[in-house]
């Protein structure tokens, strides 16, 4: 995509350490308005950690995050966040629109006063994510995909410049996953919001993804999918032989010794030898 102007969000030399464990090292990413970025990597790579750094919830050991040129701060309205899932009982007295409304002023003290413009904003956000149909149903009884849309609407309501989504697809079937990705991409493009979406499987993101940030081994490669998701690049990143297969518009990353699909780290058999197995 042709990006004009300045990056809205810049990650500059971000490193995170827990004690002497290095989780992330020298991560540099520039995010431009309206861009859709996939944040991909194996479990424990540090994707959630990176989002927490961007949100200002975790101070990086080194480096800086700037939003529109200024350092980010925790609680900024400019960054929308969509959590993975909500756990609510079916009988929770909370409608879709109440959940969405929390995106406007949920962080303020006191009760919300019903007024026209508040209602309009909520309706508009519900409409943008195609959620008007179930806006008045109790949230706890909605499906995972429907709840996900409400969460996106909630994040939209603070008028963010950047939207971060942590594995929003992990509980959805393939169709809903594609739907949610399209929805996010469309809404974001039309409002010039940059999106960073964490996903395990990058395939649903392929049609809309402008850039991929692939994290593994504490390091990240950033760039267009064609440039990053290649055998040489990922092999260097992982530090062992990894192969990228393209099958019918799908990308499959195969690694280690004979994994059938997905990415398997090479197992270290020697470590298991003689190790006591906890009695079940």
């Amino acid at each position, binding site marked *: 995509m042709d990006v004009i102007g300045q990056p809205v969000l810049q990650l500059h030399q971000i490193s995170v350490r827990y004690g002497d464990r290095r989780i992330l090292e020298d991560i540099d990413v520039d995010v431009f308005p309206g861009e859709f970025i996939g944040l991909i990597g194996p479990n424990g790579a540090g994707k959630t950690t990176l989002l927490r750094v961007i949100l200002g919830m975790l101070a990086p050991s080194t480096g800086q995050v700037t939003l529109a040129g200024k350092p980010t701060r925790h609680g900024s309205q400019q960054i929308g966040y969509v959590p993975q899932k909500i756990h609510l009982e079916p009988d*929770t007295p909370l*409608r879709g629109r109440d959940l969405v409304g929390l995106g406007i002023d949920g*962080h303020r003290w*006191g009760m919300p006063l019903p007024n026209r413009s508040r209602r309009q904003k909520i309706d508009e956000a519900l409409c943008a994510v195609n959620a008007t149909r179930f806006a008045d149903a109790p949230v706890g009884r909605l499906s995972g995909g429907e709840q996900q849309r409400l969460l996106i609407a909630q994040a939209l309501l603070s008028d963010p410049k950047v939207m971060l989504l942590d594995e929003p697809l992990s509980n959805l079937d393939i169709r809903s996953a594609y739907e949610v990705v399209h929805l996010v991409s469309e809404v974001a493009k039309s409002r010039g919001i940059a999106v960073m979406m964490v996903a395990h499987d990058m395939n649903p993101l392929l049609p809309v993804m402008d850039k991929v940030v692939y994290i593994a081994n504490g390091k990240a490669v950033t760039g267009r999918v064609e440039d990053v998701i290649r055998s040489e690049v990922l092999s260097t990143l992982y530090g062992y032989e990894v192969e990228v297969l393209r099958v019918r518009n799908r990308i499959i990353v195969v690694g280690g010794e004979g994994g059938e699909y997905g990415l398997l780290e090479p197992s270290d058999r020697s470590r298991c030898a003689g190790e006591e197995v906890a009695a079940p």
Partner: protein
Amino acid sequence: MTTLFAPGLFTQPFMLNAFLSGTLVAAVSGLVGFFVVIRGSAFVAHALPRIGFAGAAGAVLVNINPMFGLVAFALAGAVTMGGLGKKGQHDVVIALTLVAGLGTGALFLKLSNTYAAGAYALLFGQLVGVSRAQLYTTIAIAAVCFVVVALLYRPLLFASVTRESAHARGVRVGAVDLLFLVVIGVATAITVPVVGALLSFSLMIGPPATAAHLTHRPGRAMALAAIISVITVWIALVLGYDTAWPIGFFVAALSAAFYGGAHLVSAVRRGGEAVSSL
């Protein structure tokens, strides 16, 4: 009529105190209980008044206003749960804090002379449980609870349903959690003299769960919970006056009855919906 509204029901000064404080604590319980049910904190609501009970027993032992003991211990319990619960399993911490409270309560009861009768009243509630002095304390504390719940409403709801988003938006979820624990503790503590330590949590669970069956709107559910709770306490007080049976029994039985009724209503309604949508 005279059997239901026995003479003196509305004129006895202690009944006036009971009605006044009963109404207040019921309303507070309904409002706080709304969040208790949303957050699934029934165990906390169950545990804190019992810890408060230990404080009351201690206050009786050293001869001060039991209300102070109640509130002090419930507060300490809430803070302990908040502090220890951050790491480690929540329900385990609640259970152990409860055990600590009840253990001390058992000791205080044994050491003071009011072993049986006084303890019974604290555990199961009594009509003459509220003195004039306690009434004033109750009014003050209830007022504080109202204000805090109103202030906390949005961040608490936000943190209860989408915790990570609330955190990301700058809600200090840890502080909100702790503050809410404190509110539960204080609100249940003032309920104890009327309804009793063992059963005051009925008011925090029954009416809000009932309300949740009748409406999906949070504001209405809260108001409804408070109303059901107040009605429950009023009926319980009248019946308690007539029969001399423990107030806690009536409160628990009525809460269950209302809940069962609401369950039926919503089942019928949902059945109707299903039919009409065919």
